[in-house]
């Protein structure tokens, strides 16, 4: 049985159907042909939607569909009455905001690339899990005791191990940044100092003296902040020149083109020998190449891999030196056939013997647009 509102939706469905038929003109009753199918599909969807609304607004006891419930003739005049037991309002929750942050990161990932997308997924999963668990815990059947039991069995066992791993990772990463910046002598001095401090700390703890928790926590916090701060400062300063002994290893760099884009938006190269392996996964007939230039558009060329056809073809380039590229300067790599395929190039410092060698070569090879490189096709 349809409610009055549902009947109104049915009328709407009939009106829209009439317009749809007139628009599509299936029997060619109106000269000029029929309308497009996109519009027709949308109109048919509207008809179905109106009918669906009619069904929804007729569901009982979900929706009160009485248009005018009769007022008894002997009913007293209307009056103000207190609201019957105000319902507790929905509790505060930061998870909708967190979910919106996650969605924002998805949008930002559209411009910046994959790392932001993975972060967005993590944030959205966290928001979703938190939101659902909060809604679950607000059910009247969930008592404080049950919440505590669930928390002790499912969340607590993981809390400390996860925090410990995260803390360890942060400390290790920070210390590694510091050691990558310091020279050999400085690294020895710093290691000795850290070892001494650790030894003294353990000595105090092992002596059995009463050390206040606040003092311990404060010192540990200061130490953590110092280590992380030093690591951040070192990372900002950059790595020291790493001395190589013997011949420098060949750096491998793989790049793939698929779907009219490269699989990387940034190349990290080291001055010295490098082996590019470039693969074209687009269909046959779609040519790609890689060229390293000084600008995003135009600019001076430095390295070029010859164009290859699609269908899984590979091209390997062995360069005797990354010609003319200077550490700390921005470069771009791009496909000369498709202007949308671009990315950035970062170059790290080369070992001293390689620096000298590549410097003398750069002046000869810089002027060449198509470098005379050994190109091997597999």
């Amino acid at each position: 049985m349809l409610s009055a509102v549902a009947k109104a939706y049915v009328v709407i469905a009939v009106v829209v159907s009439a317009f749809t038929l007139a628009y599509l003109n299936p029997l060619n009753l109106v000269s000029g042909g029929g309308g497009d199918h996109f519009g027709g599909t949308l109109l048919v969807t509207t008809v179905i939607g109106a009918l669906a609304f009619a069904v929804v607004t007729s569901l009982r006891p979900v929706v009160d569909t009485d248009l005018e419930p009769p007022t008894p003739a002997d009913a007293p005049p209307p009056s103000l009455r207190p609201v019957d037991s105000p319902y507790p309002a929905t509790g505060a929750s930061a998870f909708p905001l967190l979910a919106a942050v996650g969605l924002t990161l998805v949008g930002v990932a559209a411009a910046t690339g994959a790392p932001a997308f993975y972060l967005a997924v993590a944030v959205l999963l966290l928001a979703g899990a938190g939101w659902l668990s909060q809604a679950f815990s607000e059910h009247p059947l969930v008592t404080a005791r049950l919440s505590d039991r669930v928390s002790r069995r499912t969340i607590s066992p993981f809390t400390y191990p996860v925090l410990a791993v995260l803390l360890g990772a942060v400390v290790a990463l920070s210390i590694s940044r510091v050691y990558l910046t310091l020279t050999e002598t400085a690294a020895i001095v710093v290691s000795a100092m850290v070892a001494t401090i650790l030894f003294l700390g353990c000595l105090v703890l092992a002596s059995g003296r009463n050390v206040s928790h606040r003092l311990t926590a404060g010192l540990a916090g200061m130490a953590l902040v110092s280590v992380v701060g030093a690591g951040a400062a070192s990372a900002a300063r950059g790595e020291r020149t790493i001395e190589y002994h013997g011949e420098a290893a060949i750096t491998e760099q793989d790049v793939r083109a698929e779907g009219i884009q490269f699989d990387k938006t940034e190349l990290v190269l080291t001055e010295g020998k490098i082996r590019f392996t470039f693969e074209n996964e687009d269909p046959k007939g779609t040519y790609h190449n890689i060229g390293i230039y000084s600008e995003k558009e135009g600019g001076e060329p430095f390295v070029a891999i010859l164009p290859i056809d699609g269908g899984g073809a590979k091209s390997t380039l062995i360069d005797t030196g990354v010609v003319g590229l200077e550490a700390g300067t921005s470069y771009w790599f791009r496909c000369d056939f498709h202007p949308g395929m671009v990315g950035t190039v970062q170059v790290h410092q080369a070992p001293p013997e390689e620096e000298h060698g590549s410097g003398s070569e750069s002046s000869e090879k810089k002027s060449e647009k198509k470098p005379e490189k050994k190109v091997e096709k597999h």
Partner: protein
Amino acid sequence: MTMTEARPAEGATSSSPATPPSPVGQAVVDSADHKVLGLVLIGASLLLFLVLRAVGSALGAEMISAGGQVVGDNSRRFYSLYETGIILLWVAPVWMGLATHLLPLQIGSSRLAFPRVQALAVWTHLAGAALFLAGHVIDPPPGIGLTGREPFQAPLGGINDGTNLILAAFLLLGLATLLAAGNLLTTALTLRTEGMSLGRMPLFTWGVVAGAAGSLLATPVFLASSLLLYLDLHFGGSNLFADSRGADLVWQKGLWLYGRPEALLLLVPALGAACDIVATAVRRPLSAPPPPPVPHGLKAKLPPLPGLVTPLAGHVLAVGALFAAATFSLLAWVQDRQTIDAVILPTATIPTALFAAAAGVLVLLWLTTLREGSVRPTLALGFTAAAILVAAAAGLNALVAGLAGVEGSELGQGMIELVTVGVPTLLAFGALHHWAKKLFGAPLSGPAGALALLSSLGGTLAIGIGQSIAGYAGVEAHAREAHGDARVGFAIAQVGHVLLLLAGILIALDVARVMAARRGGDTAPADLTDGVTLEWAAPSPPPPENFTELPEVRSAAPLADLAAAKAAGPAGAGRSASKSASKSASKSARKKG
């Protein structure tokens, strides 16, 4: 093994059900209170209105300067930001914010159906707005946004970061609209207070219901088209902009702002609000015109057709008109390629003209109601009258342009400013004044409001007429410079931009003043003579649970019924009060049993 747990004593805390914490004192960022969320959205929309009007003023100054001196090479960026933003970041969210705040109050509910989903919708909308703005600031977009008749040319070098952000913003804004529409519609369908059947809902709520139902069908089309656009452009393609009919259709029906139903659908809640403003001004429901005179002999033979033979309730007619308007706006999809070449938008199709007819029925109802009742003049009524004037000007303009066979498409932009932007803007300002006590806790300033009314009316008319003059002079839309009569037209339009900016500043400052004064936490009791619908039974501002007492709902104007009952005599009212109290008490006892 059987494990039973003893039922604890009343009031025991260790095993008592976990109740959600009180919403009093919630910070804005984690609030689930619909009133807080509505204010956040209204406040953000007002700020963005000021930004967008400033951008529009810069564009106007560009047209009257000696070409290319104000915005220079950024004209594409400014056009995209202004024309797309004024709909997506002002008109849509301000009405979404008003609906979020007021709909539960109007139906006598303590909250929305899903408060946290609404919070997600609000924050997602703000995130989309931020990405939209950031995208325009970072890089120039490839075209003039979603308001160009033709799809914008896919850039040769692939899209820049800014365009990626703008495309992502479209998806977020569409998602927010969808979430809010479903939530508001569900609230209206399921959380009405006792006695409030669907037929007794206030007309603003009906407008929101009709608009939300339409949005649930129209917004997915926008989302689908935005997804296609994103997938194509982000990966370096240009297939959606190739010279093909398919590409044209996807653009025209799925993305082009003036070819989509939303161009007119956003007017439906605004028309509903105007209905409530008029009803409040006369303190009774809307009146319908009397049925036409039918000869007595014929009348006896006809069935009792409402509206023809028997009087039709104005409320019912208004609901029908609102739904008709929403339906006809959805029929924007019937327009074909030829239509987007038409000069006058959005009145270029039969369904759009039918929308105007439905709106005309509502205007007729308002005028009939105002003529028959004793009117309490308010600023909100003034803004409604201004909206009617602007709509009439647009209709006259369309008639003149049609007879004159105008060719310049700037005329279409003028019509957009009048109908799609101007009318809902004026009604939004009117709604802010009308419901100020419930929104902000205290009425807005009368003198500032009057100044804002004159400024916004003058500004809207100036922009519409100015751009129309340029259209009559043969100027194409989004031109870079103008000469002669067209330049005069753009000068008038520029005055309009400045006046609207001034109106926005006045409203925004007034709202800020009232909100700052409210921080004392004072709550005024409800004044039942303020209006006829349930929101006026809440204190000002409403507490977290919205109502402490409610009148019985027996019609579409429960407070008017209450006032009539009180006027009937104190003895009758006292007897009824005690009967209601005992009826309520026995009902509670039955529920607890």
